[in-house]
């Protein structure tokens, strides 16, 4: 009688399958990787999207141009405003609507505040995966001040539905800018504490320095964008390279880290946070008086002229793009959403995770700041 040998020569014995997600503290969103493991080391990683797929692109074809504004913030949960702005900018370009200066400044303020909120949310997740729970509590606590500001401005804490083709829905409330200024002062005081607590912390450094190195060529070849690309040494930011809104009137730098490992990716985000605060301070000083919205026709009659356009925004994760096609109707003919996490989450992860130890996988996922809702859309 021949029995199956239980030793190294039998592949069924050497490898086992491990699901990381969809319900797992180490992954973001309802997304999962199916890992083929050998001992503690990943031998193969297969993304398993679809659990979160809500068919937004199809739903948008059945709704009016302006009705979609209530739908699209749901595409990226931690940073919903980029969706609204990119979508509105696309409509404005196709319908040739001029946006008043004040509205453009308000949009920049909203985008930069959302970037800070997204950073706080992302790094707090890293605190969870490294066992550094105090940082998770601190950062989520500070994010709440931003949500309070958003609630005052728009009525919504997480989803704002504040942008509208031609501008924004309401003007800034009386005294809002003063409160924003107070918040920036508070953040300015908090930043040195973060640095000491998180970025100079030996635990965080030990877990992230040297992990998941990505070279500049590799980053371009694999379609990475945003801070992940810049941390690999390719200094490219849409806000500088192809300025939209009023970013060309604002003075800010693109920080350089350039080591390409997990630590430089979070450090890149931290340094960009400093620049966001600088941008917001300038906006408070420079914002002009005037109208906050150009009137657009009745939403039921609002027809966008025939054509197509790819509008994009630099989000905290990278290039967020909307490819929109109009056939001259009251509804979009087709909208395609390019989420910044698509290439890293569905393609590059299958290469990068191979050879990594299981405890490093959640750290890698959180340092790339992946947001599965934006590809599982």
């Amino acid at each position, binding site marked *: 009688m021949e029995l199956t040998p239980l030793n190294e020569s039998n592949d069924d014995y050497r490898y086992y399958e491990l699901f990381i997600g969809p319900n797992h503290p180490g992954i973001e969103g309802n997304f999962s990787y199916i890992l083929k493991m050998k001992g503690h080391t990943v031998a193969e990683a297969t993304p398993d999207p679809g659990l979160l797929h809500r068919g937004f692109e199809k739903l948008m074809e059945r709704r009016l141009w302006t009705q979609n504004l209530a739908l699209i913030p749901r595409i990226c949960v931690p940073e919903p405003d980029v969706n609204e702005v990119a979508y509105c900018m696309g409509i404005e370009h196709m319908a040739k609507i001029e946006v008043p200066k004040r509205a453009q400044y308000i949009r920049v303020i909203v985008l930069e505040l959302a970037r800070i909120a997204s950073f706080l949310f992302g790094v707090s997740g890293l605190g969870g995966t490294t066992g550094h729970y105090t940082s998770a509590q601190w950062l989520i606590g500070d994010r709440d001040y931003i949500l309070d500001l958003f609630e005052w401005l728009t009525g919504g804490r997480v989803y704002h539905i504040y942008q509208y083709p031609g501008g924004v829905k309401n003007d800034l409330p009386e005294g809002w800018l003063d409160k924003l200024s107070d918040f920036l002062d508070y953040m300015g005081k908090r930043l040195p504490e973060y640095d000491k607590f998180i970025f100079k912390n030996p635990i965080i450094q030990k877990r992230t320095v040297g992990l998941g190195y990505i070279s500049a060529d590799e980053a371009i*070849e694999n*379609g990475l964008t945003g801070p992940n690309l810049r941390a690999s040494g390719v200094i490219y930011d849409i806000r500088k390279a192809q300025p939209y809104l009023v970013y060309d009137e604002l003075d800010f730098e693109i920080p350089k880290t350039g080591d390409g490992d997990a630590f430089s990716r979070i450090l890149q985000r931290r340094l960009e946070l400093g620049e966001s605060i600088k941008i917001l301070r300038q906006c408070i000083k420079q914002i002009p008086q005037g109208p906050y919205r150009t009137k657009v026709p009745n939403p039921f009659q609002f027809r966008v002229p025939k054509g*197509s*356009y*790819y509008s994009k925004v630099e989000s905290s994760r990278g290039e967020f*793009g909307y490819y929109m096609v109009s056939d001259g109707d009251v509804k979009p003919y*087709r909208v*395609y959403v390019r989420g910044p996490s698509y*290439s890293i989450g569905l393609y590059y992860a299958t290469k990068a995770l191979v050879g990594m130890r299981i405890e490093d996988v959640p750290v890698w996922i959180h340092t790339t700041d992946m947001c599965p809702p934006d590809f599982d859309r």
Partner: protein
Amino acid sequence: MADILDEIRAMDLKASWLNDWEFEVIVPKERIGSVLDYLKSRTFKGFMGLSCVDWIDEGKFELVYILQSYDLSLEAIVKTKIPRHRPVIESMNAIWKLCEVYEREMHEFFGIEFVGNPNLRPFFLENWLDTPPLRKDFDTLAFSEELFEFKEDETHGINPPERIE
């Protein structure tokens, strides 16, 4: 910046600016591989996305490749049309390996066959046997009515006052 468009026009292709940073190129189906390869050699190294538009009245699918040049700070939108009744096109994964996942998605949602792509297994959907769902002739309402059970009084909307009583 303008000379890249002249070069493309010299290749007997239609090209036009959409704004200061973006231009579109319209390419016949047979030349798509060589044009994308050429653009990649002209610094358009970033592959940003692949989309598809279903022009049902025309009987065509339009594939849209979005490319990024980090050196020139330009975005290229390359479009090509393929017949709807037999949607077959060569895969671009020899130029960008990353294309594989984008093509896999378009295969699933539009039913386009990418020749040369080794991995066109189901991706987002599970056990899907119906029409590819992003095609224009896929009726979402009929699909959900068939899939989900509705009670008789709920099919034509719920009347709130009656419910409150």
